[in-house]
């Protein structure tokens, strides 16, 4: 993974000192809450329902074991002994005291971590495929480019006060596991005719109030032009993006109002005019950063079947919670943060320490966070899988449900967030209880449920095979259900099936929906494919049949 040099470290240390002074001035009454807000947001600090919430950056989801241990220690010392992994691969602490935050940041800086630009109207944490570097279908490892973009975006003098938040994702594979088409900028790695590296550039994707799928602004951007082109896009957005209405301030609205052709013409003209003043991406620098992401020193092994002769529950875990690896004899192992009865994405300090130790023993000391709110041990020798399973099970992290209906994404909702309408955690647990039979889950196969507690769509409900959105009706929590969304490859936005349902009806309604699928699916057909084939009507009819009173 990337290691800070003296410059990187100095910058993060100086940011900690600056933020410490900002907190001091706020607590001394020199900065009002209104004045302090944009400053604290640019360092990941929200004031939530009960307490501040600190969002710690995990650039492109990659953690060293020592970093995960530090997160565990921080959560134990300054919080309530747990943290919450988010859809942007970050970690949120829900209960830190404001006065402690500078010390937390100083501890993070000692292990080359920070909370810079994890919120606020600026360029956010750059995300990537959690299988980067090991996926068999990968064209190129996206992480060096994510790291270069992270550096370019950090405290950018021109683009720190944008109209709205700005999210960039990079994907290096044919299957888009980074949901790049629903980002403000989605970069898809490509190879040119001579094997050179470049990107297809999509702009204007995003969820939230008016969800949109990114449009191709440039089919082929050569790597050396990356910063220059990003600066052109950001400059057009910074100058012309709307600032009068927070709900119309994302770049997707600017792109839509200009139209793709005119937006493209503006960006291309700015790119050509600004090239001489834009930061250069010189080959030596690219090579330096690439050097941090070389393949691990793998042993020469052969693929084997580690499940032969072992118990059924290990076989199920192997099937659902591990993935194929590019190197023979290895597997990628999901650490499921979706145990039934737990909060999706939550992890205790003890669990973090357990996984850190395991990673050091069997996966070169690295851990990844995924946008589906799980962790991943990317490079586990197949011969160690049984032992890994036993240890994860002992930690409560071996729920064999990855990719199934209960491996759902959910935002923290009403329990923590001051924006939310709905208690997503309670609904997640209601769903877990209803679908607690593993054989039934396995029969249903691959189904992605994504749930948000409000329109801001932190739980990505628009791109769930089944999307669940909490809405407020006269002070009561209701849930709108959509079907047919997808964020990987054939990106699509789900369609709302009908009136929202009461909180206690959510899991029962889902059951009627998946029963419809079980009745109507063809051989081997996945849920999403059945929805695409037969449309919403059969699902709608059945979902509401039992409850004409649904409002």
């Amino acid at each position: 993974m990337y290691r800070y040099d003296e410059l990187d470290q100095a910058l993060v240390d100086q940011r900690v000192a600056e933020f410490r002074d900002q907190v001091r001035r706020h607590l001394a009454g020199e900065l009002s809450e209104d004045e302090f807000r944009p400053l604290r947001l640019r360092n990941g600090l929200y004031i939530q329902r009960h307490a501040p919430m600190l969002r710690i950056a995990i650039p492109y989801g990659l953690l060293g074991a020592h970093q995960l241990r530090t997160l565990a220690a921080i959560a134990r010392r300054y919080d309530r002994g747990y943290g919450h992994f988010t859809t942007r691969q970050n970690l949120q602490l829900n209960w830190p005291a404001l006065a402690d935050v500078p010390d937390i940041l100083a501890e993070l800086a000692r292990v080359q971590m920070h909370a810079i630009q994890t919120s606020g109207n600026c360029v956010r944490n750059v995300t990537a495929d959690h299988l980067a570097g090991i996926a068999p279908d990968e064209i190129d490892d996206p992480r060096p480019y994510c790291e270069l973009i992270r550096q370019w975006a950090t405290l950018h003098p021109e683009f720190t006060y944008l109209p709205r938040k700005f999210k960039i994702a990079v994907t290096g594979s044919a299957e888009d596991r980074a949901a790049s088409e629903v980002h403000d900028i989605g970069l898809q790695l490509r190879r040119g005719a001579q094997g050179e590296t470049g990107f297809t550039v999509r702009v204007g994707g995003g969820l939230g109030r008016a969800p949109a799928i990114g449009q191709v602004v440039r089919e082929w951007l050569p790597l050396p032009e990356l910063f220059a082109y990003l600066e052109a896009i950001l400059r057009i957005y910074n100058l012309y993006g709307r600032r009068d209405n927070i709900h119309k301030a994302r770049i997707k609205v600017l792109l839509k109002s200009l139209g793709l052709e005119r937006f493209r013409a503006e960006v291309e003209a700015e790119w050509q005019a600004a090239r001489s003043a834009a930061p250069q991406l010189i080959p030596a620098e690219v090579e330096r950063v690439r050097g941090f992401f070389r393949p691990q020193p793998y042993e020469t092994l052969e693929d084997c079947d580690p499940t032969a002769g072992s118990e059924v529950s290990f076989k199920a875990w192997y099937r659902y919670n591990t993935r194929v690896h590019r190197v023979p004899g290895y597997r990628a192992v999901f650490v499921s943060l979706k145990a039934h009865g737990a909060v999706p994405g939550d992890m205790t300090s003890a669990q973090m320490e357990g996984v850190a130790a395991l990673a050091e023993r069997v996966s070169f000391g690295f851990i990844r966070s995924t946008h589906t709110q799980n962790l991943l041990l990317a490079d586990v020798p197949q011969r160690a899988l049984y032992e890994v399973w036993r240890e994860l099970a002992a930690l409560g992290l071996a729920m064999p449900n990855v990719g199934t209906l209960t491996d759902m994404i959910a935002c923290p909702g009403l329990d923590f967030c001051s924006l939310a309408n709905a208690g997503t955690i309670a609904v997640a647990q209601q769903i877990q209880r209803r679908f607690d039979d593993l054989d039934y889950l396995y029969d249903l196969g691959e189904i992605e449920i994504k749930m948000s507690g409000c329109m801001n769509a932190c739980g990505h409900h628009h791109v769930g095979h089944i999307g669940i959105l909490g809405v407020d009706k006269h002070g009561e929590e209701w849930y709108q259900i959509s079907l047919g969304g997808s964020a990987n490859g054939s990106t699509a936005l789900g369609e709302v099936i009908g009136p929202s349902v009461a909180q206690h009806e959510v899991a029962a309604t889902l059951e009627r929906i998946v029963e419809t699928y079980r009745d109507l699916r063809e051989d081997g057909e996945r849920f999403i494919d059945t929805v695409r084939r037969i449309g919403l009507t059969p699902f709608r009819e059945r979902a509401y049949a039992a409850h004409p009173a649904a409002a």
Partner: protein
Amino acid sequence: MRHILRRREIVADPWRYLGEELATGDPVIVPLSELRADREHWWSWTGRLGVRLKPADDVRDLAADLPRLDLVAVEFPNPGDGRGYSQARLLRERLRFRGELRAMGNGVRQDQAFLLARCGFDSLETCPGVDLEAVRGALTRYDVAYQPGAPQVELRRQRFFA
């Protein structure tokens, strides 16, 4: 007497805004709309001339007037409105403006000073009541940066170059 931060020094501001007490030949800053409305008059003003831009003004429209201008003042109505950062870079890098580039308004505070200077502002005019010493101190909060930037801030190390 208004004081501003100019090239890291706190100095009395010799400039007057149109509407303030003004003698013939005083250095004066006029709104872009005023310069547009009476270009001939302002071009023949006997003193130094500056123009004041609002966030929505297109700086590229200013190219023809820049030879006459000794100062461009860019307004930041609040700290969250970042359009002026792009206006500054366009003025310095695209239009090669070498005169005084001033950030002014309610959005000019100590926590913005470093970024403003990196975009090419060499003078900062704060609202009354803002501690200019603190703004000056903030120019040296960082001595490293990733991006190329204007020479108004001295850096010890920088990663990417233009």
